[in-house]
């Protein structure tokens, strides 16, 4: 997918919906992911460690309530819960190619208008994403949101070493990015 530029999708992304879910839950959930592998159905996967087993049923109830309040393009939704972290991770990597993982990885980022370009580099077990920002000064609140997305994205690339870099476009010498490929450009 070298030098391919994605068109910005104005719809709320699946990844950002997943993040909304996590925020809504605001509980000690180990992992939440949304995977859609049928055109008309979405699946939420919730992974919880056994130490929270007593809260497990309660959590499923909260998610159901969230889904009832959230209309996602009129699609049906189902919840699949699992306490087996390994099984979920294997499943994720099985159903997604590198290109698909890359697209999923940037999906939530591009909804932020401060993000103007995203570059990537994939070398076997090493994945790097370089995110350029168009704001005038470092915005702590924005960056903390991006770091939270970053953690979720890293889990998608299980077994691979994923590193994120951020820089203000205005002050970055683009020659520095000569070994990277562009995956997103705003506008």
């Amino acid at each position, binding site marked *: 997918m070298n030098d391919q530029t994605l068109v910005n999708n104005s719809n709320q992304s699946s990844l950002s919906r997943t993040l909304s879910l996590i925020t809504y839950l605001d509980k000690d959930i180990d992992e939440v992911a949304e995977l859609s592998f049928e055109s008309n159905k979405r699946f939420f996967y919730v992974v919880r460690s056994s130490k929270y087993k007593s809260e497990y049923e309660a959590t499923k109830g909260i998610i159901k309530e969230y889904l009832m309040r959230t209309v996602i393009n009129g699609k049906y939704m189902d919840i699949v819960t699992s306490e087996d972290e390994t099984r979920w991770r294997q499943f994720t990597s099985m159903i997604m190619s590198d290109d698909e993982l890359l697209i999923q990885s940037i999906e939530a980022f591009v909804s932020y208008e401060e993000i103007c370009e995203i570059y990537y580099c994939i070398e*076997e*077990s090493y994945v790097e994403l370089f995110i350029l920002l168009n704001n005038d000064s*470092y915005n702590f609140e924005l960056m903390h949101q991006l770091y939270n997305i970053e953690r979720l994205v890293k889990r998608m690339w299980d077994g691979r070493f994923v590193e994120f870099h951020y820089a203000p476009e205005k002050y970055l010498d683009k020659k520095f990015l000569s070994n990277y490929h562009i995956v997103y450009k705003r506008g």
Partner: protein
Amino acid sequence: MATYQEHYDQAKHNEEIADLLLNPKCCSHAWVTIITFYAALQFVEAAFTRTIVKHLEEYHTNLKKGKSEVPGKHTLMQQLIEADPRLRRFANEYRDLRIGSEASRYLKTGYSQYFNDDFVRRCFEVNLQKIKCELNREKLIDVV
């Protein structure tokens, strides 16, 4: 391998120098950010001596055995912070400091308008203090 006390003393030393450069008027954005980051790093390394990590250097060396690719030490540090629920609460603040201190490596002149006065002051007065406070609350460092 440095002891808890050596890491802690170095952290305090870095913190005092950052304070001197920052107050009353900041005389070097870059250096205050870098020294503040290294103060945070030393506080976390002191905390590691009271966790299963013990020593970052040794942990990193052991990780490299039998593996072709392992993260650099700074990235490993970030990963260890995010992996430990006691440290995770300040993972974002630590990341702010790391980004600020790394910026001078690849940014063009003028980047101090991006990582400006407010950035430097918040890094020192808010981020570093939060890191210390959380570590102290978890009894991983003893703030004196």
